[in-house]
């Protein structure tokens, strides 16, 4: 159950190394911010139209997990050690879904499961060494069987469009940066990260990109 995945110290997760204390990459902060905003908007929207749409049914949990999106992404990053670019690519998948199935909303009941599934597929596609579904399931607080189901569901929903061209990747990075700045959110600048650096997200991450 997702709700079981606490946001402080995790349940026994067997990882090859202990997680490091390093601050999570900025991309996590940005994406969780953007996702939180999206969820908030959609929750409101869902109330107006009284429904979430059907396409994302496979990702619904019984209730919304207590862990915040930010903490959830940090947790995924910390334990799976996937490359930061996976979060951008995972975000691209969610964005593609949103465009392809405009009637189906990303809301608090499905956002966590969507994220873990998207990041896992992105990592499978992107990282030379990556954890298997079983591990992602444990990190994500879902059952292995559920995660497998969601993986397939997502692949078919995306029509197997899981490639993100370098150009698309780059423009998503810029888009994410802009979202962050547009909102006058200064958290990206909190860690003494100058604007210039913040705009270089694409170039920082792109080195991971072939």
């Amino acid at each position, binding site marked *: 159950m997702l709700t079981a995945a606490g946001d402080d110290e995790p349940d026994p997760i067997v990882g090859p190394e202990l997680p490091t204390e390093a601050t999570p990459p900025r991309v996590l902060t940005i994406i969780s911010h953007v996702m939180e905003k999206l969820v908030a908007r959609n929750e409101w929207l869902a109330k107006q139209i009284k429904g979430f749409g059907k396409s994302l049914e496979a990702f619904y949990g019984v209730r919304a997990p207590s862990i915040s999106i930010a903490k959830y992404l940090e947790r995924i990053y910390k334990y799976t050690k996937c490359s930061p670019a996976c979060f951008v690519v995972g975000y691209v998948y969610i964005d593609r879904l949103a465009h392809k199935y405009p009637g189906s909303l990303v809301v608090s009941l499905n956002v966590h499961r969507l994220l873990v599934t998207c990041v896992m597929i992105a990592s499978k596609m992107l990282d030379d060494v990556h954890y298997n579904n079983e591990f992602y399931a444990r990190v994500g607080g879902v059952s292995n069987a559920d995660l497998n189901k969601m993986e397939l569901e997502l692949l078919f929903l995306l029509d197997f469009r899981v490639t993100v061209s370098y150009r698309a990747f780059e423009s998503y990075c810029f888009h994410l940066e802009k979202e962050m700045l547009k909102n006058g959110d200064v958290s990206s600048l909190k860690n003494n990260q100058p604007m210039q650096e913040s705009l270089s997200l694409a170039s920082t991450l792109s080195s991971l990109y*072939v």
Partner: protein
Amino acid sequence: MAAAAFGQLNLEEPTPVWGSRSVDCFEKLEQIGEGTYGQVYMAKEIKTGEIVALKKIRMDNEREGFPITAIREIKILKKLHHENVIQLREIVTSPGRDRDDQGRPDNNKYKGGIYMVFEYMDHDLTGLADRPGLRFTVPQIKCYMKQLLTGLHYCHVNQVLHRDIKGSNLLIDNEGNLKLADFGLARSYSNDHTGNLTNRVITLWYRPPELLLGATKYGPAIDMWSVGCIFAELLHAKPILPGKNEHEQLNKIFELCGSPDENIWPGVSKMPWYNNFKPARPLKRRVREFFRHFDRHALELLEKMLVLDPSQRISAKDALDAEYFWTDPLPCDPKSLPTYESSHEFQTKKKRQQQRQNEEAAKRQKLQHPQQQHSRLPPLQHSGQSHAAPHWPAGPNHPTNNAPPQVPAGPSHHFYGKPRGPPGPNRYPPSGNQSGGYNQSRGGYSSGSYPQQGRGAPYVAGPRGPSGGAYGVGPPNYTQGGQYGGSGGSGRGQNPMGSSRNQQYGWQQ
């Protein structure tokens, strides 16, 4: 489907949304392949009667989820559309036992499995070449080579590296068309070769020196080395570089192509494994000497393919412009090629087993009753029983890039102990030209031309296990290299020359 106006029939067939149809739309005719990772069936689409190949994607391994190999193959094949590249028609699902009564697309709709639907192909190049008694003519070899290069050029223009070019992955139908198949190891690449890619790809015998020396940045030239090996194999009637392990493979390459040094291959001494593998003494390049029986143009082209330095190796596009394809005898029209009885390894293996048993029984009988020799069954090379079809990979599951190289898995994956050396005539023209000397000098007509090693390449380290297989059943092989990169721009790299030759490539107008 769009609604038809009243009184009219809407005969327009919408392309089915992938994954929306059930495998029940097909009637399985017979299994044509079997591997550790899945089965391949010949099947008939019930509605249209069309024959297709269904490749089941196995998902027994719950821990791994959907095989990454399959994801890659699907996404790459989705963007490639060319007459010399196998066509993935759609993906169908099997609801399995958990289907609810209405067949509702619930969460369990994939429970029973996922199938990739391919156009059906009758043969693969290795199987065809190994058909006893079968000899390819020169125009036929040219025809296959040209199609291979055309298909590969298309992949490269679309920034896809195949990474497992070998005879058993080149499918041939009864109309003489050749198509590249098994894109399970394929990946996109970017032009600047900045990627950090795994070098554990390509079946050992067809693996280029740069990968064997540990390169992790590479490009389309890797596929061209494999093409060179296949080309020579077609002309030479047996695999030319049958190494048993990576070290031996490199030695064989150096014995044929000379030892690399900074002059002929700038940068080679900086390759990761150069110092481990460099030959003890300098070796001379002997391609011309080894293959002196080939005709001049064939040899000239081969020389340009089997170049150690990948940056100097000929590209698919330039190879298509080689004199070889434009001098007599010209490549024949695929349609003019003879058709061969279709058979697939899965079936023929059974037949062969039966035949072997009969033969052994006959031998025993012969020992007891020597006079009954005449009762022996025809030898194995009896026509029609030999075709080898795709063989299915059985590689290690989910290796990582760091996995240690594996010991090649035995000499042959292809024939499962099928005796070599048919007494019949050689399969290939005695040489690339009319001289014919070579095979005879090897006793070709009398003792057969098969190498001891057998044909299926040894498998090789790495991601890919014994693989092959036309429809490439397998997820096993996937390497985990990153996927991203240019997503394709077809049309890029168009041949700028307007010569009539270009039109031969067909796809790039």
